[in-house]
């Protein structure tokens, strides 16, 4: 069965979705069988692509819409929520 999930997440860390944070998201997204997209201000990014994520240009305080589809959509969303909640392990 295929899941289709959607949620909105705030960017908590001070530097926003910069190279380090984007790298963590992309590496995580690549480990799941799911199509994961991030969306901000109408722009969409493939969560497996660090450049796509950087291209969203998300500073601290921005809101990101997260969508996942596929057999592992559930665990993928849970893991990404966790990553956002921890502010990517960075200063907030």
């Amino acid at each position, binding site marked *: 069965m295929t899941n289709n999930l959607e949620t909105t997440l705030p960017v908590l860390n001070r*530097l926003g979705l*910069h190279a380090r944070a984007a790298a963590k998201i992309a590496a995580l997204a690549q480990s799941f069988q799911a199509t994961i997209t991030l969306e901000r201000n109408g722009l969409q990014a493939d969560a497996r692509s660090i*450049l796509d994520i*950087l291209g969203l240009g998300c500073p601290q305080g921005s809101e990101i819409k997260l969508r996942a589809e596929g057999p592992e959509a559930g665990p993928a969303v849970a893991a990404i929520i966790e990553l956002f909640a921890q502010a990517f392990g960075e200063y907030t």
Partner: protein
Amino acid sequence: MTPLAARETWPQNKVLKGIPASPGIVIGPAHVVSDKYKVQINRYYLTSDKQIAVEIDRFRDAVALTREEISTIKKSITDEFQEHAYILDAHLLILQDKLLYDATIRTIQYERINAEWALQEAVHQAQILFSKIADPYIKSRIQDVEDVSQRVLRHLTGGNPFDFGKLTEPVILVIHDLSPVDTTQMSVAKVKGFITETGGKTSHTAIMAQSLEIPAVVAVEKASQEIATGYTLILDGLNGTVVINPDAKMLDIYVQRKKKFEEFKLDVGKSSFLPAITLDEHQTQVLANIEFQEEVDLALDYGADGIGLYRTEFLFLRHQRLPTEEELFEDYRSVAQMMRPKRVTIRTLDIGGDKFASHLEYAPGINPALGLRAIRFCLKERTIFRTQLRAILRASAYGQVRLMFPLISGIQEVTDARRILAEVQEELAREGHPFQPDMPVGLMIEVPSAVMLADLLAKEADFFSIGTNDLIQYALAIDRGNKHVANMYQPLHPAVLRMIKQVVDAGHAAGITVAVCGEMAGDPLYTPVLLGLGVDELSMNALAIPVVKRIVRHASMEEAQEFARHALQYGTVDEVNSYVTGIMAKRFPEVFMFGRELASAA
């Protein structure tokens, strides 16, 4: 030969300004080198499917080589700092990112275009994507994409750094950027001078140019666009001027200036190996500030009595990882050995804020100069500090090594730093490493609070060294980088003179020596004032040593003290400036001829 018609359209007497990086004046033909890092890329079509397959393989191979290259760098980072290798992880992800990797392969396949061009196309698309980002920090990360693609491009093209062997006649080289390695490969016979579009006064490349005695002007904007190969250039490495296609009158002015400068240089050179003793036999130490090991030769050539400040940041910034104790030890040991029996004063890491962002994720903050840096950083990142202290102590067995702590603001920092030093000494003794147990430990006085506490700090130290650059900045609350207030940065501000005096008096009362190691020490205009205030040692850029020594040798301590006493009586900067300038113009006119230019052209 260039056709005459073309020559007529050449710009004449056009003046470009840059930063003087290596003193001297040269006149000669320009040779413009196109930016070597932007590897020349041709575009060509692939005519058969077989060619396309070969091209895709070639691209995949280059990516694989790049991945290996980045992974190797990553592996060389020690375990405890793996966390900070994130930028390399990001590079690995960028390398295989669909916007770069897949897009390049798609372009090769469907547009039947060669790999280099296809990759460049993908980078261009990324640049467009990033140009739309509002956040300046994230926007700037396009640099990572460019870095990664440059690595791939170099593997694709086999790399083609500029070949100096191709030069057949002596030229003035005009190039976007020159790496220190390129600089060392430059044949002095074929390169009379060089102009770069990037770089600064203290860049490694500038230092190499000084050692090779090749005049250079750096940070000349758009030099390679303004100048074409074959133009006649005047390069004035004293004041950072470049004149394009000078007319007869201009040429004459510069030929005269060149002659006068060379006479002056020869003249001051004579006293550079003599001790800096005043006419009434008061001896001063004139020392060199260095940043790289390669500068030791330069310091010795210019007659330094020792190294008064060895800045140790370079090894920490050179790689994407932290240096090991062995690497630091080898570096410090060779400097100590090369200088022996003269002394080497090693300043512990003066780093922090933004500079360290690639290693350790301390956000730079709005005000990095007032942030977590220097001794504060070291007392927090003790592993780094201990590693450096171990390396310095071990090097002390091989020469006259002295240690100094930067940015001290109070007693507690000295107590803490000394305690760690003592622990490290015990550790080394236990392990059987030789070191000098009574290596002198000094403090940099560059925070106003340290000036106020100088009498107490003097009891905790073997010597003081006043870092005037920071002290002036902090005392006058002036950010030199801010053009609206930069002119208020005044070494002769009455408050600055009083602070120097207070530190000198406190040091002498406790029986320790006081040095000045900021730019002020290397400006011959201030030499007599500093002497008169009682400063025992002056440490400066090596190029300034001959001029400063000459002034010391032509002055008497008595007149210098009188001079300082007078200077201290004025209440405003303008009064002090005009007093000092007036006296110096009468007593040491050479300071204003070439002295200051020679001293500051570095």
